[in-house]
């Protein structure tokens, strides 16, 4: 099934919600504007639709292979990746000093939606490279940057992230991989095994740059003793020569079949320390926080792909006969409408939130003073678990609905919509499960500042509510009630957790996912309210495409009336606390 980027949607968000041109002027992106952004998006959309998207089903069916030289990627992937790399798409947001193009993060996010929607498995590879570039650029010294970044930015080499070990998953304190200074004093020797390494091996490029967490001989125990190393598949000065880095096997998975998930063995492999010793985990988190937002973006992308397929099927599939004998496409049936509206309104909320969160990084980096920087960084960090946790959970439901719209045909693999559902399943797991996101939200974002960061977000939502009221228009007025109630529920839930968490040690962990979902739906509602305001103003000024803008208003209404209702369920669950959840002994299960 073909894929077309929803260019009107990304244009609407960038133009009216982000105010992209103003962001570029204010935060130092000289010569960048929406016209340039849309040109880049159009061209990426062409590459995505014509080259990456047709390979998606091929990758799902063929998967990846292994021989004595390591991983063999799915057919056609190497050529497609080369086109991606030669197009210069790897380095949109990389600093110009390192061979990149220095464009805003929010633009990179808008473009990346295309890669992930077109081919999630393939897009994971440049996504990991982007993370590696981030970590090296942020924490490596100049020599390290000069050695690796130009090759990574050009897409000539790819990057990976090696954290997980068989006994160290969410608990990275248990990492065992070792690093010892090399006898010649140049670098280190790394040994150990890593698992779940995405695109850990392939033949699409001449070299692969692994970022590896390992312990130095003098390392203190726990998370304070982990250092970050760059370990290339081949040492830059000896191309093609073995460096003791091997993929032992690849996993058989539910989805993303064309993305090799590798067991990696490092056997006395030469590597270089990134930054200072024992700071590895903190460094990895700069990379991880960005990756978490991108996984949220993947949730949006895969939902868009599934929605496009469901929408087409609903328009073409005829079931039922009208009185005049003509057949009825299933999109006429109210329950199919319910599913499509849930998908459409969910998608639009997701996209706006992903881009809004991505823009916070640009606002933070380009802030004019420390106060502004701190404000936008705090907001960025607050959004991260919501974008990652809520969007990827929601994507499970929405990709499932895309199958449901197809009825029995959806369950048949040849139809192709099942792949999106299977591919989406990893999103709530990797880069920190939903549970980890929710804990991050409650402990580091809510309890840590006693709710100050969230309250500043709620105050901005109050302002949007006031603006909806000031418009004195029926199409906007219908949003006010549900949105105000959802906001008040969020305040109630956060306040309750802040009051009660001290007394009950299990409470934060028990209610965190429901709280995260409540805040996710609320943020989605805020995005819809702002979209509706923008659409209303444009319609009043007689600007823009009428049918498109009117649909925005209706979609916002559907979201507020039907999806914000879920915040009540979440609140009820939060307020019930940990009691029944933790009451059974483990033996009683």
């Amino acid at each position, binding site marked *: 099934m073909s894929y077309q980027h929803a260019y*009107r949607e990304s244009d609407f968000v960038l133009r009216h919600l982000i105010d992209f041109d103003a962001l570029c002027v204010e935060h130092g992106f000289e010569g960048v504007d929406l016209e*340039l952004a849309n*040109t880049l998006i159009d*061209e990426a959309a*062409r590459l995505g639709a*014509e080259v990456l998207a047709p390979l998606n089903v091929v990758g799902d069916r063929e998967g990846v292979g292994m021989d004595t030289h390591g991983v063999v990627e799915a057919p056609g992937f190497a050529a497609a990746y080369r086109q991606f790399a030669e*197009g*210069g798409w790897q380095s949109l947001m990389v600093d110009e000093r390192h061979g990149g*193009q220095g464009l805003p993060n929010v633009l990179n996010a808008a473009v990346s939606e295309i890669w992930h929607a077109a081919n999630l498995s393939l897009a994971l590879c440049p996504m990991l490279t982007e993370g590696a570039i981030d970590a090296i650029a942020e924490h490596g010294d100049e020599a390290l940057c000069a050695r690796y970044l130009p090759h990574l930015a050009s897409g000539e080499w790819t990057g990976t992230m090696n954290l997980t070990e068989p006994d160290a998953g969410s608990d990275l304190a248990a990492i065992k991989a070792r690093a010892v200074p090399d006898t010649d004093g140049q670098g280190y020797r790394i040994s150990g095994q890593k698992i779940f390494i995405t695109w850990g091996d392939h033949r699409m490029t001449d070299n692969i740059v692994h970022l590896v967490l390992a312990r130095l001989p003098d390392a203190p125990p726990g998370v304070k003793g982990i250092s970050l190393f760059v370990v290339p598949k081949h040492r830059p000065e000896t191309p093609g020569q073995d460096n003791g880095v091997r993929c032992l096997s690849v996993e058989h998975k539910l989805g993303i079949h064309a993305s090799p998930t590798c067991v990696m063995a490092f056997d006395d492999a030469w590597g270089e320390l990134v930054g200072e010793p024992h700071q590895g985990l903190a460094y990895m988190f700069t990379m991880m926080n960005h990756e978490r937002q991108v996984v949220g973006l993947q949730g949006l992308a895969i939902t868009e792909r599934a929605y496009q397929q469901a929408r087409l099927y609903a328009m073409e599939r005829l079931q039922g006969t009208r009185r005049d004998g003509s057949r009825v496409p299933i999109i006429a049936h109210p329950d199919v409408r319910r599913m499509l509206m849930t998908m459409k309104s969910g998608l639009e909320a997701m996209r706006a939130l992903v881009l809004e969160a991505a823009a916070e990084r640009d606002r933070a980096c380009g802030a004019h003073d420390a106060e502004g920087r701190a404000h936008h960084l705090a907001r960025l960090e607050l959004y991260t678990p919501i974008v990652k946790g809520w969007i990827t959970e929601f994507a499970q439901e929405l990709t499932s609905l895309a199958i449901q719209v197809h009825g029995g045909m959806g369950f048949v693999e040849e139809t192709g919509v099942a792949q999106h559902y299977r591919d989406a399943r990893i999103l709530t797991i990797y880069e920190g499960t939903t549970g980890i996101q929710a804990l991050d939200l409650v402990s580091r974002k809510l309890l840590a500042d006693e709710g100050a960061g969230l309250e500043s977000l709620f105050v901005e939502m109050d302002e949007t509510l006031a603006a909806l009221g000031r418009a004195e228009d029926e199409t906007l007025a219908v949003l006010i009630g549900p949105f105000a109630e959802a906001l008040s529920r969020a305040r109630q839930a956060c306040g309750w957790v802040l009051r009660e968490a001290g007394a009950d040690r299990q409470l934060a962990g028990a209610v965190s996912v429901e709280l995260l979902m409540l805040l996710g739906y609320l943020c989605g509602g805020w995005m819809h309210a702002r979209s509706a305001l923008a659409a209303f103003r444009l319609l009043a000024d007689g600007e823009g*495409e009428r049918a498109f803008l009117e649909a925005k208003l209706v979609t916002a209404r559907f979201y507020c009336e039907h999806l914000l209702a879920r915040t009540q369920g979440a609140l009820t669950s939060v307020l019930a606390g940990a009691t029944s959840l933790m009451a059974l002994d483990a033996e009683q299960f």
Partner: protein
Amino acid sequence: MKVLVPVKRVIDYNVRVRVKSDHSDVDLANVKMAINPFCEIAVEAAVRLREDGKASEVVAVSVGPKVVQEQLRTALAMGADRAIWIETPETPETAGLGPLGIAQLLAALVREEQPGLVLLGKQSIDGDNNQTGQMLAGLLDYPQGTFVSGLELGDEEVEVVREIDGGLQTLALRLPAVVTTDLRLNTPRFIRAPDIMKARRKPIAHTAPEQLGVNPAPGPRTLAVHPPEPRAGGRRVESVGELVEHLRQAQVI
């Protein structure tokens, strides 16, 4: 040798075209626009000639209001060296320009720029006139090769393969010449992101019909635009006899 490539801004071929409710025109408001696919092929051909060292400079040109700069930027991102924007207050059609008027403007520009080769798309996917290239050649009294699917540029001549009824025709044209491209000449490249950025810094020169000393001939007037009739539902007939009866009634046999 300099190659001049006129390009046209048209509705993107992926967009479903709608007619304005007053039937005055096709609705262009907030519709995604793109470079005409045949023009894109012409730009690609010209850029390849320069990359192969057979052409020294590729100049893109477009006629229309300020927004046509977007399509000129696309041509620049594909590899054209510079661009010329011939400004008209509205789209050529709304400004009353037809293929002849456009050809007159281009002819004036050709006399100024003196390219060795003018490469155009064989037609635009909006008007589907398929006339501008031929008229331009006529006005300039240049040799013309139309519907070209093969192109070999020499110093004095250009050899073209034309797609004609019943086969292919190979012609050698004396330069300077006008060549219009068919679909099979090439597949336009994917544009590299850095080239899109670089295109922003390439120059777009501005001119206008008065500056070129042209008072373009008026084109056809659009009286009304109607969408095609939606397809009526079919119906099942019981017998061949009944089918023939229906066809007779519909006066198709």
